[in-house]
C-alpha cells in the first residue's frame, strides 16, 4: 500500500472516531443542562401528571443510554427527529437553512481566501515596507472591529450613503442565483472583512519563514524576480500552514456567523440554533451541534490531507 494512502485512511478513520466521540459529548452536555423539557413546554402551571405524560410521549422517560443510541441510530438513517416545540421534522428544517449557510460561507470564502493569500504574498514581498504596513494595518483594523459594528458600518455605507444594496438579506426558495448573490452581498462583505486578517497574516508569516531557506537564496542567485521567487519557490513550501488557517476560517464562516445572520435577517443555521436554544428544544440543539462539529472535523481533516499531499517527501517516497 502506498504510504500516503495509509496516512489518508488513518486520518479519515480518526475523523470518524472523533465525530463519534463528539456526538457523545454533545449528548452528555445537553443531558447535563438543568431543568425539564416537558415542564418548559407545558409551562409552570402544568400538573405533574401532564408532565409525565408528555415525557412518555417524547421518550424522555427512557434511560439516557437508550436515548443516545436511538438518537445515533436515527442520525445514521437520516432521521434527526422532530422539534419538540412545533413538531417539525428537524432534517427538513435544517436542510434548507444549511443550504443558506453554505451559500453565504461559500461566497465569503470565494472572495476572502484568494484575496487573503494574494495580500499575504504582496505583504511578504514588501515586508517592512509601506505596502506591507498598509495591508497589515487595514486587515488588522477590520479584524479588531466587532462583527455587528462592521455590519452596521457597512449597512450605513452601502444602503444610506451609497444606496446600492438592501439592508436585509432576504433569500427564499426559487430565487435566482444572481438575485441571491445580490441579496447576500452585505453579509459577505462583512464576513470577508472579519476573516481576511488571520489568513493574510498566516500567509505572510509562512512565506517569510520559507524566505530564510537556502533554496530561496539559490533562486535569488539565479536572477529570478522577487514575485517569481515567492510564487514558485516559497509558496509551494508554505502551503500546509496556510491551508490549516484557511480551513479554520472556513469552519468559522459556517458555524460562527450567527451575529451577522441576525443583523441582516438572514435565515440560516445560526439563527435556527439560537432560536431553539432559548426554547429548550434539545433535539434541534443536538442536531445542529453535531452538524457544526462535523463541519469542523471535516475541514480540519481536509487541511491535514492537503498538508500531506503538498509534501513531496510523502507523495514521492524514496
Amino acid at each position: 500500500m502506498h504510504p500516503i494512502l495509509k496516512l489518508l485512511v488513518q486520518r479519515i478513520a480518526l475523523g470518524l472516531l472523533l465525530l463519534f466521540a463528539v456526538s457523545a459529548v454533545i449528548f452528555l452536555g445537553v443531558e447535563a443542562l438543568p431543568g425539564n423539557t416537558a415542564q418548559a413546554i407545558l409551562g409552570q402551571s402544568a400538573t405533574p401528571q401532564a408532565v409525565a405524560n408528555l415525557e412518555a410521549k417524547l421518550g424522555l422517560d427512557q434511560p439516557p443510554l437508550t436515548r443516545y443510541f436511538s438518537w445515533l441510530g436515527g442520525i445514521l438513517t437520516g432521521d434527526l427527529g422532530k422539534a419538540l416545540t412545533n413538531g417539525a421534522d428537524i432534517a427538513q428544517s435544517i436542510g434548507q437553512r444549511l443550504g443558506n449557510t453554505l451559500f453565504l460561507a461559500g461566497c465569503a470564502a470565494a472572495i476572502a481566501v484568494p484575496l487573503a493569500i494574494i495580500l499575504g504574498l504582496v505583504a511578504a514581498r514588501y515586508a517592512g515596507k509601506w505596502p506591507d504596513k498598509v495591508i497589515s494595518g487595514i486587515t488588522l483594523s477590520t479584524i479588531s472591529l466587532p462583527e455587528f459594528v462592521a455590519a452596521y458600518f457597512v449597512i450605513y455605507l452601502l444602503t444610506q450613503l451609497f444606496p446600492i444594496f438592501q439592508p436585509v438579506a432576504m433569500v427564499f426558495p426559487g430565487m435566482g442565483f444572481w438575485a441571491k448573490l445580490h441579496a447576500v452581498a452585505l453579509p459577505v462583505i462583512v464576513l470577508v472583512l472579519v476573516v481576511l486578517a488571520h489568513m493574510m497574516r498566516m500567509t505572510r508569516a509562512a512565506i517569510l519563514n520559507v524566505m530564510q531557506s537556502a533554496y530561496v537564496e539559490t533562486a535569488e542567485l539565479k536572477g529570478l524576480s522577487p514575485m517569481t521567487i515567492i510564487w514558485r519557490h516559497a509558496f509551494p513550501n508554505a502551503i500546509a500552514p496556510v491551508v490549516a488557517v484557511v480551513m479554520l476560517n472556513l469552519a468559522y464562516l459556517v458555524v460562527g456567523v450567527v451575529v451577522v445572520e441576525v443583523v441582516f435577517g438572514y435565515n440560516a443555521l445560526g439563527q435556527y440554533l439560537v432560536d431553539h436554544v432559548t426554547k429548550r428544544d434539545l433535539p434541534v440543539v443536538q442536531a445542529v451541534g453535531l452538524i457544526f462539529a462535523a463541519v469542523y472535523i471535516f475541514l480540519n481533516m481536509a487541511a491535514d490531507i492537503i498538508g500531506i499531499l503538498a509534501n513531496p517527501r510523502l507523495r514521492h517516497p524514496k
Partner: protein
Amino acid sequence: MADDLLLDIKGLVIEATAYPPGEPPKEVTLVHGVDLQLQRGRVLGLIGESGAGKSTIGLSAMAYGRGGVRLTGGTIRLNGREIRTAGPQALRALRGKEVTYVSQSAAASFNPAKRLMEQVIETSLSHGIMGKAEAEARARALFRKLGLPNPDTFGERYPHQVSGGQLQRAMTAMALCPKPDLVIFDEPTTALDVTTQIDVLAAIKEAIRDTQVAALYITHDLAVVAQVADDIMVLRHGRMVELGTTDQIINAPREDYTRALVSVRSLEHAEKTPAPPVLQVANVTARYRGTNFDVLKNVSIDLPAGQTLAVVGESGSGKSTLARAITGLLPPTSGRITFAGRVLSNDVKGRSKDDLREIQMIYQMADTAMNPRQTVGTIIGRPLEFYFGLKGAERDRRVQELLDQIEMGKGFAQRYPAELSGGQKQRVCIARALAAKPKLIICDEVTSALDPLVADGILKLLLNLQAESHVAYLFITHDLATVRAISDKIAVMFKGAVVRYGQKSDVLAPPYDDYTDLLLSSVPEMELGWLERVIEHRRMASAGN
C-alpha cells in the same frame, strides 16, 4: 590579452552591521580592499579560515551580499561592465546567466517541492538562453558528464530522493546548464564524506575543463583546492595574504600564514602501549525503536584508561549511534557495556549518578550544545553543583581553574556563548565535560566544524588534558588526519559494523581491507596531480577485477 579578462575586482570593501549582545549595533568591515583578476577559462582558488571573507568575496562576483552584507567600496567589473553599483534589474539579468553559484549544502539549496530538472533548467528558460527541449537535453548531457546515475531520468526525481553527493553534482549541472562565463564554487565538497568528495571533485574538475568555464573555487581545505585550481589566493581577516600559482603556494609558500596552512596536518602523536581497558563494549547490537534494522551490528571494542580510541567511518556508518549506545541513550538490544570494572545498565535510566558523571560528551556543534542565555561561568559551574555540590566562591574558584586548564584565562566566566569564537565555544564545552571529573569523554566530531588551525589547537588541548588528568577519549570522526593526530587505537566502522580494529600502527599499515583502503586513499593530499593519480589507480584496479 585584455579581452581575456573576465572578472576584475579592485579595492573591494565589504561592510556589515554586527549586533553584539548587550551592546549597540556597530559597523564592521569584512573585506579591506581586495584586488582580484580572473581570466576566461581559469580557476582561481580562494582559501582561508572562516571569517577570512572568501565566500563574501566570491559572492561579490555576482554583486550579492548575503544577509546584511554591503559592498561599499571599490569596483567589480564583469565582462567589462561595472556591477557593484548596478541596479536590481541589471543584476537579475546577469545572475544565473553570466555567473552561477554552487553552494556548500546542495541539499538545502534545492527547492524540496520541485523536481530537479525543473530547477536545473530554470535559469536557461527565464533568461531566454535556450528553449525547453534544448535545455533539458543539455541538462541530461551534464548529468551524464557528472557521472549521475540514470542521467536520462535523473531530473524526474525530487531532491529528497537522491543522495547528498548526487545533489552536489546536480547543483554543478544546474550552474553549468545556462552556459555561464563564471561559476562560483563555495565549499562544494566540504559537507561530503571523504569517499564521496573525491568523486564529486573529479566530476567538477572534468566539467570545468570540458566546458571551458572560469571558476572561483572557495574552500578552507588547501589539499582540495590544489587539485582543481590554476592559481590560489590566500585570504585572512578580509585581506589578501598571498597570491600565486597552485604549485608555488603548495611547494614554496612565501608567507608564514600560508606555511602554517600547508603544514597544518603535521600534528603527530606517539601511540601509547596497550593497557587494561576502562571501557569494554562487548557484542553490542542496537536498533532504533519501531524499526527492524540493526544500526549497530555486534560491535566489540576496548578502550584503555587514559588513551584515545578513534572511531572512523562515513556518515551513516553508526559512529554516533555507538556513542548513543555507550551513554545508554539508545539502549542496546543485546551485548554488554563494562565501565571501570562494573557492568553498566543498558538504559541510561538504570545508571547511577557516578556512572553518568564518569562518562561525559562533547559535540560537533558547540553552538547548540550550550544554553545561549547562560554565561560561561554558569555553564561550567552547573556540573560542579550537580555532581559535587560546590557553591559560591568555591565553585567560582573551580570554574576559573577549569578556564585556566582550557587556556582561556580570566574574564571569560561572565561572557555569553554568542561572544565567543567557534574554537572558544568548543573549549568551554570541553571544560564543562572536565568539570565532572570523568574517566571517559566521548568526542563526537568535535573538530569537524572548526577551521584547520583552530581544530589543531583543540586537538593539542585535548592531548594535554589527557596527559594531566588521565582521561580516556572515544573520538568519533570522519577525518583521517585527525585520527592520525590523536589516536592510540582505531576502529573503522562501515554500515554499523566494525570492519577493522586495533592499535593505530596496525590499522594504518597495509595490508588493508577494501573499505579501509578506499577510505585512506580518498583523503586529499597536498600535492599536484593527486586526484588524477587516485582516479587512474581506481580505474586500473576496477579494470583488473
